[in-house]
């Protein structure tokens, strides 16, 4: 093993085996390699049976950097010799490992292991985000996860609203994306999320602000939950919902333009100290932001509640519009209607309540990802079981392109625990979460 033989050893063995003089053997071996070399430099490919193929290949010029000086240098085009062993030689050499065969790894099991491993060595580098994946998750969550939440959350809206809010970053990115792409479904789901977020933000004081503060009453905001209809599963129903969303968006866009004008006027009179420059595009943004500002501006609360009740009417109006436009999905919208009213009311209530009680450690929490933190461990800490990380992921999916590697410093929002979903003692909850987990994983893989 690891002995270095020389030409001498080769000729010795050859003379022994071939029964020829050492001198002849040496001459033979020398010419053997000389011929290979000569042929190579004539641009030929030399193939020797039972051994392998020698070939000259061209290396294209490329730029490089001198490591010590940092100077850019160009590596000129050159040639290099390659030796490709024949299969028989390869097999002969590989005898010590020949019993080993490639083994297919079980995708899911391994993924889970990786999840643990990767998060141990989490780095701050953000993994490149593939657009397709993003869109996939978007669709998935907006139809399945999110709507699932609304479905049973509605009976107790105060906690429900919390569980869907977002972190400031998320909102910013979603806003940006909204203005860039005009993906309708995304817009609606985002905005409804955002509207909740703003409520939520009032109760959590320690969220770093996104810097987009503008106190403007938000008459539009509470109406957004209209777009979310309870829906148990994906599939055909999803497309119907999509249809409703698109059509209601159209109505909303028309309606919001008008509303924006009124709003602007009221804004200017009520809050003179703020010079808001609301352009048509910025309307949506403004509506979303309003709530946290009202936190600081006392006088506004009253105005806002006013506006909310106003919105209440508008919501009804709008719903009727929607119903007429898409008679197909009337049933769905009616169910949505029922849920919307209590929501609007509770958001108003929350606004008042949250003002007095902002310091209490209540859900939803916002957690900054530190070294070694991972979604599964957060889930274990707050919900009592690792598998419920899927809900944390669902609530933060825009911030987390890859749940296996969450960048350091990411502010993760932990939705409030829901006994009907995140009960570690309920096997049904766990199996449901597990199903979600496999779904998410398979989506990430594709």
């Amino acid at each position: 093993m690891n002995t270095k033989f020389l030409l001498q050893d080769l000729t010795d063995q050859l003379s022994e085996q071939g029964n020829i003089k050492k001198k002849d053997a040496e001459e033979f071996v020398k010419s053997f390699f000389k011929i290979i070399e000569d042929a190579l430099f004539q641009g030929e490919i030399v193939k020797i049976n039972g051994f392998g193929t020698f070939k000259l290949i061209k290396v294209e010029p490329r730029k490089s950097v001198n490591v010590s000086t940092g100077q850019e240098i160009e590596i000129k085009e050159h040639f290099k010799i390659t030796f490709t062993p024949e299969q028989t030689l390869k097999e002969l050499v590989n005898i010590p490992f020949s019993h080993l065969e490639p083994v297919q790894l079980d995708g899911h099991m391994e993924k889970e292991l990786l999840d643990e491993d990767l998060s141990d060595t989490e780095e701050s580098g953000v993994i490149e985000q593939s657009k397709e994946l993003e869109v996939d998750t978007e669709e998935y969550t907006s139809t399945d996860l999110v709507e699932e939440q609304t479905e049973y959350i509605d009976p107790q809206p105060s906690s429900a609203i919390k569980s869907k809010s977002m972190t400031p970053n998320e909102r910013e990115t979603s806003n940006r994306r909204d203005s860039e792409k005009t993906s309708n479904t995304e817009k609606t789901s985002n905005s409804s999320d955002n509207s909740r977020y703003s409520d939520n933000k009032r109760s959590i004081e320690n969220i770093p602000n996104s810097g987009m503060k503008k106190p403007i009453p938000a008459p539009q905001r509470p109406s957004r939950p209209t777009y979310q209809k309870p829906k148990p599963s994906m599939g055909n129903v999803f497309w119907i919902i999509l249809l409703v969303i698109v059509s209601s968006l159209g109505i909303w866009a028309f309606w919001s333009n008008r509303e924006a004008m009124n709003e602007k006027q009221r804004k200017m009179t009520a809050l003179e100290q703020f010079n808001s420059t609301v352009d048509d595009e910025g309307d949506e943004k403004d509506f979303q932001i309003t709530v946290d500002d009202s936190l600081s501006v006392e006088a506004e609360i009253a105005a806002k509640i006013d506006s909310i009740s106003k919105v209440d009417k508008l919501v009804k109006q709008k719903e009727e519009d929607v119903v007429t436009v898409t008679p197909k999905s009337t049933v769905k919208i009616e169910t949505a209607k029922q849920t919307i009213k209590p929501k609007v009311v509770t958001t108003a209530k929350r606004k008042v309540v949250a003002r007095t009680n902002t310091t209490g450690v209540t859900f939803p929490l916002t957690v900054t990802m530190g070294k070694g933190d991972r979604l599964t461990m957060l889930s274990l800490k707050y919900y009592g079981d690792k598998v419920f990380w899927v809900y944390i992921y669902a609530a933060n999916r825009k911030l987390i392109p890859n749940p296996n590697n969450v960048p350091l410093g990411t502010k993760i929002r932990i939705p409030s625990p829901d006994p009907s979903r995140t009960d570690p003692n309920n096997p049904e909850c766990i199996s449901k979460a597990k199903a979600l987990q496999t779904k998410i994983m398979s989506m990430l893989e594709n």
Partner: protein
Amino acid sequence: MKNKDFIQKIQQTVSANGERTAELVEMTTSIIAKILSEGDSLAIKGFGTFEVKKKEERVSVNPATGNRWMIPPKLVPGFKPGTSMKDKLKTYSSNEY
């Protein structure tokens, strides 16, 4: 250049008949193969070094299906050109251009 041409060329430089030359060539390669299979290396002055490299095990993913495979470690015969060969390669490149 195929094996046949190679043997013919050697035959011209070494005064031996075709069959004998082919036999000797086969013998030479089998000796090299034997050396390599024992994990040793063979350095030919003015030409280069034949040696065995170990490739570590790795996880490979089929991009089409997403299946993950554990590829076992393996030993691979390799060739490294010697210094005189490298020099010739350099001049060869500059001759061309």
